């Protein structure tokens, strides 16, 4: 399968095969700003199979959440056909409406408030619910 390269925009490479749709959903891309390609299950030297997202003519996409969903992914910024930046992903300090609190007694199960989690431990990837302090381990 042949995929054209882009001249300006962002490429999210090395996504775990099958996760592309979910990533695209969480990135909450405004599809009217440019062209968006989701390429799924392509061969990869690094991971056997991978997904790729190409965002043509996009400059500012909040990829913070990617560190949580798939920290092995690579984010590449392209301008005039040249790679200008590669981003090393890390666990975000704060995530909003990505993780959902599993504590049935948490206020988020009742009141219309955003699900907010803060990174509690960088090594183990523990996140703490802002409201009830319930701990969940990263992307479970």
């Amino acid at each position, binding site marked *: 399968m042949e995929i054209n390269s882009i001249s300006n925009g962002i490429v999210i490479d090395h996504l775990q095969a099958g996760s592309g749709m979910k990533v695209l959903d969480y990135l909450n891309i405004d599809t009217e700003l440019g062209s968006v390609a989701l390429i799924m299950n392509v061969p990869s030297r690094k991971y056997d199979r991978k997904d790729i997202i190409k965002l043509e003519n996009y400059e500012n996409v909040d990829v913070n959440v990617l560190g949580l969903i798939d920290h092995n992914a690579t984010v590449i910024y392209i301008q005039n056909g040249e790679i200008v930046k590669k981003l090393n992903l890390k666990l975000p300090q704060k995530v909003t409406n990505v993780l959902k609190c599993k*504590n*049935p*007694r*948490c*206020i*988020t*199960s*009742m*009141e*219309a*408030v955003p699900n907010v989690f803060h990174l*509690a431990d960088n090594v183990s990837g523990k996140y*703490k*619910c*802002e*409201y*009830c*302090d*319930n*701990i969940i381990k990263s992307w479970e």
Partner: protein
Amino acid sequence: MDLQGRHLIAPLDLTVEEMEGLFSLSQKIIARPEEYAELCKGKLLATLFYEPSTRTRLSFEAAMLRLGGQVIGFSEPQSSSVSKGESIADTIRTVAGYADIAVMRHPKEGSALVAARKSGIPMINAGDGGHFHPTQTLTDLLTIKLEKGGFDGITIGMCGDLKFGRTVHSLICALGRYRGVKFILVSPEELRAPEYIRDEMTDFEEVRDLSEALPKLDVLYMTRVQKERFFNEEDYIRLKDSYILNAAKLKKAKDDLMVLHPLPRVNEIAIDVDDDPRAFYFKQMKNGMYIRMALLAALLGKADLT
């Protein structure tokens, strides 16, 4: 130190110095209550109790009345617009339009934080589910301080329902800031302290047997198994009598042990302990009113803490 306009939602919302200031003010109130009888005259406290309460609600109401203020509120959600499905955010916006300060108890964890963010008046968390209960912690700490003089180096046993026991969670967080405090957690496996609380302690051990821990303790904090937090009645019945302290067991304890309990008790402390000089839970209950007087006065800007 000026606490005017602040909220009290979690046990670490107050610094150690601010807590000490509240203890100091409480002691002055205990010594000369008449000097504070009109301190909050013209101020209105709203008590929003979505869950049953005897001590906390009455002690807040008594505290405000003894400061010369007045009280409005509800003690069960069925008697308010909550029963019509009103959100916490809308309720607190309304209350903030009428009162000068509000106290809220709610079964959901984190509810007090949600309320505080929508409140234009100081909010006090009087218990949010099985999460935190910071004013009970102030009560507990005042009681220990009055008897022991301080907290450094004490060994405290927390016994019973450490999973849902909000008073335990708050007390551990607050005591964790003092030097050399050792925690011995006594609970069945199913009622262990949650991970976010275990992470707060540097020196602690977990045991299953109260008798094993008892001789080592300076303070024993007994708790009730929280029936209202269980989704399964069978689990509650199986665990409810895990630990019962009685006069015979107390023979193994130190002479200067303090037995505390946030109350209400069910049967985890036998009544033959009540007359033991080491039983402090009724004094503790009374101290709750004094520390709440100090807190209300401070948050309303009527008392400067030194």
